[in-house]
């Protein structure tokens, strides 16, 4: 474990910036944290987490995939992929770090998504342990330890110091370059114990996944509560857009007069034309669309991924849904664990 003073953080960012772009949560003009490029004078936000998740870096909302040039009967396909820059993201919370275990299982399995893989290879994630969780946090429901997040490097912040520990080869290589002072882990252990106590007091601390998981489709699919739960859902998809693990996208083409650009953009199971096919749409009502989002995270995903749930308990959908409907209310109602 290594240690530095909080005041030296800018020097460290400057050092890392020599070889890679550094991004970190920074307050925007309305005081909300947004991942922003570090430059001299840019200050790390005190907010617990960013409004939008880190997913956007690796899987952006809109992205061009390839171009076609059409001349007469000839179609030329242009590969527009470029090597990603090297970048380091600092200040990522435990929940958001875990979201990459979920996304990787979608994008990095064969056939591997080269766009996503490219950014994963070039990105280093530096996480930071939580000390003041929100009432909307329930990462512990999914076995995530907010006091000791994963990531290439983990950082703990105390009053005046930062403690660093590398977890991967990539992280070790970066940390070695920073020449920080070695130290023992007593301060970190003390913080972990304190935060663990707070985690137990969170209002959602007792939420469990016991009634969900693979094999539960038949039992849960036709539950009558889906109707009441989805009754006032607007189908806006805010929940899917702020979610660090929602991964669905649509591929479309755009003719700019000079050729055709094929691009993808995020899609949402909450939308009326989601997975619409030649025969029509397979989810005609909002109840079905709403159910899809939660069944995917709580049943289908774990069924196909050794029991890992597709939610990390970040609480963004709790904070952002215009009608305050969310995965916790679904779990308590459908799973009956109040």
């Amino acid at each position, binding site marked *: 474990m290594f240690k530095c003073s909080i005041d030296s953080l800018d020097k460290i960012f400057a050092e890392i910036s020599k070889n890679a772009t550094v991004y970190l949560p920074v307050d925007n003009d309305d005081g*909300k944290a947004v991942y922003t490029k570090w430059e001299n004078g840019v200050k790390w936000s005190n907010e617990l987490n960013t409004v939008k998740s880190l997913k956007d870096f690796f899987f952006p909302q809109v992205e061009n995939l390839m171009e076609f040039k059409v001349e007469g009967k000839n179609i030329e396909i242009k590969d527009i992929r470029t090597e990603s820059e090297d970048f380091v993201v600092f200040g990522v919370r435990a929940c958001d770090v875990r979201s990459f275990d979920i996304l990787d299982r979608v994008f990095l399995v064969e056939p591997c998504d080269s766009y996503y893989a490219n950014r994963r290879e070039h990105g280093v994630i530096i996480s930071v342990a939580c000390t003041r969780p*929100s*009432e909307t946090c329930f990462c512990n429901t999914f076995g995530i330890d907010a006091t000791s997040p994963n990531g290439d490097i983990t950082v703990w912040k105390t009053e005046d110091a930062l403690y660093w520990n590398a977890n991967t080869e990539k992280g070790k290589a970066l940390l070695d370059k920073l020449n920080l002072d070695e130290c023992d882990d007593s301060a970190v252990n003390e913080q972990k114990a304190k935060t663990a106590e707070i985690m137990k007091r969170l209002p959602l601390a007792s939420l469990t996944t016991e009634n969900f998981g693979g094999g539960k489709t038949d039992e849960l699919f036709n539950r009558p509560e889906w109707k009441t739960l989805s009754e006032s859902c607007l189908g806006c998809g805010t929940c899917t*857009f702020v979610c660090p693990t929602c991964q669905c996208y649509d591929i479309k083409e755009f003719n700019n007069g000079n050729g055709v650009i094929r691009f993808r*953009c995020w*899609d949402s199971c909450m939308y009326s*034309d989601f997975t619409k096919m030649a025969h029509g749409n397979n989810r005609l009502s909002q109840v079905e669309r709403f159910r899809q989002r939660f069944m995917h995270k709580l049943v289908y995903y774990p069924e196909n991924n050794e029991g890992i749930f597709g939610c990390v308990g970040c609480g963004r959908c709790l904070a952002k849904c215009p009608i*305050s409907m969310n995965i916790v209310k679904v779990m308590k109602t459908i799973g009956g664990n109040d």
Partner: protein
Amino acid sequence: MQKISRDILVEKAISMLENGDVCSVLGWRKGEFDYDITPAVFTDKDDIKNNFVWNDFCGANFSKYLVQKTRKAEGKILVFLKPCDTYSFNQLLTEHRFDREKVYAIGIPCEGMVDINKIKEITGDGISSIDCGDKITVNTIYGDKFDIDATNVLSERCINCKSKKHVAYDELIGDEGEVLESNRFDEVTKLEQMTPDERFAFWQNELSKCIRCNACRDICPACTCEKCVFDNPKSGVENKAAANSFEEKMFHIIRAFHVAGRCTDCGECSRVCPQHIPLHLLNRKFIKDIDGFYGEYQAGDEVGSRAPLVNYTTEDIEAADIFEGRDN
């Protein structure tokens, strides 16, 4: 802070259900915390007893839900309407969007709704309880207690409330209020005083935050098209995400034009925006201009009124005058 107690509304709802006057009730359902209420359809009296709430977090406007809910309803639906909600209600009726016969509307007075984001700016994260009395009392899991004056955390639209009067109802509970003189155009005037470049930069900055969830459109009582052009693959302008800064602005400007003269300034769009974009400023600019060009007009004030933009008169301002910046 609300003067009407929840119990009166609960009693009313239960008795109407029991007497068979209505088959369902649109109301606010208790959440996981004290502030996250959900608009809900109640059909069971125990459910109402246990879960119906009426407090300073009941901002949700039910008028638009009537479009869908009345279609399926076997009997009448009881709906509770705050003063601002009644304007949306009338506007929807003007546009023939729901069957008035299927609704029993109860007007309830409103003292203003608070904004949880403003509360959290004071208290920080970790809220364990909120009590809406004379003061808003917030406790946190960190052992802190805050007594907040509700007027300091009112939502923007309630600070600038345009009317405490109900313009539509079958029955009124509590006292009727008045149309208010509000300062709702002050911010618009500030924008007008900017140079075009400053104004462009202002909107560019705000609209670049948009994630195109369309929550603003989906909640808007003036946006009730069965299929929005922006969702329709056949329209040629379907737009799931903004590809560039032009598209970021296009959606909002088109939407503002489409609701111009029909927007009641209910404030729902700004309330629900996850990115806190001040969408109301765009709509209020249109309202202010319409007032200036064609004489004062409040959408939803009465059922059946002809909005200035669809009502030609020979006194109408000439396009050239508008272009030159002259008011009528």
